């Protein structure tokens, strides 16, 4: 029974780890491909917060309580600071006169 529990926890850690790497990759792709500062912030902030949180969760499942508390503290810190930093960057970009890219409607619409 205990062996099965450990096996399930290991499997959960593996799934969470690769899910986190996937989300980090999607965020990087958004940073490279999107056309505007605001679009890039929109893509990267959420993807990076979720990806880093999933990877830290995967590490916290594996470790002892002493380490897991620190990892959850780190994840909580990322969860607080990452949207705040994105907000400050977007505010600075808007106030320095960068206009968002608007969608051009084609004639068929």
């Amino acid at each position, binding site marked *: 029974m205990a062996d099965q529990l450990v096996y399930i926890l290991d499997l959960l850690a593996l799934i969470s780890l690769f899910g986190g790497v996937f989300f980090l990759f999607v965020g990087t792709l958004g940073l*490279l491909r999107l056309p505007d500062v605001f679009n890039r912030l929109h893509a990267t902030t959420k993807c*990076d917060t979720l990806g880093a949180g999933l990877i830290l969760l995967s590490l916290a499942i594996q470790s002892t309580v002493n380490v897991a508390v620190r990892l959850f503290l780190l994840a909580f810190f990322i969860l607080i600071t990452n949207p*705040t930093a994105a907000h400050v960057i977007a*505010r600075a*970009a808007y*106030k320095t006169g960068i206009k968002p890219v608007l969608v051009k409607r084609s004639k068929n619409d």
Partner: protein
Amino acid sequence: MDIAWLLNSSYQLCAILVMMMVFLSLIRALIGPTAPDRITAINIIGTKILVIITLIARVYEQQYYLDIAMVYALMSFITTIGVAKYLEKGALD
């Protein structure tokens, strides 16, 4: 195939993959047309480096790397806030 071995090699593989993503983000920091693009890229790189530090702490079984990761997160956040404020106001006061 042991699942503990699989997990250990997965952590090493994921550290390498995230390192590659750091280099991909550096492209945006290099060619970004405006300054906020570069700040965004640096912020994202900070988060990814933090993830790499925690993964290395797991691989090498060193617990105090997590404290380094915490200090790194704090410094990355303060840097981003400072540069964005400087960009917005033209001065730090």
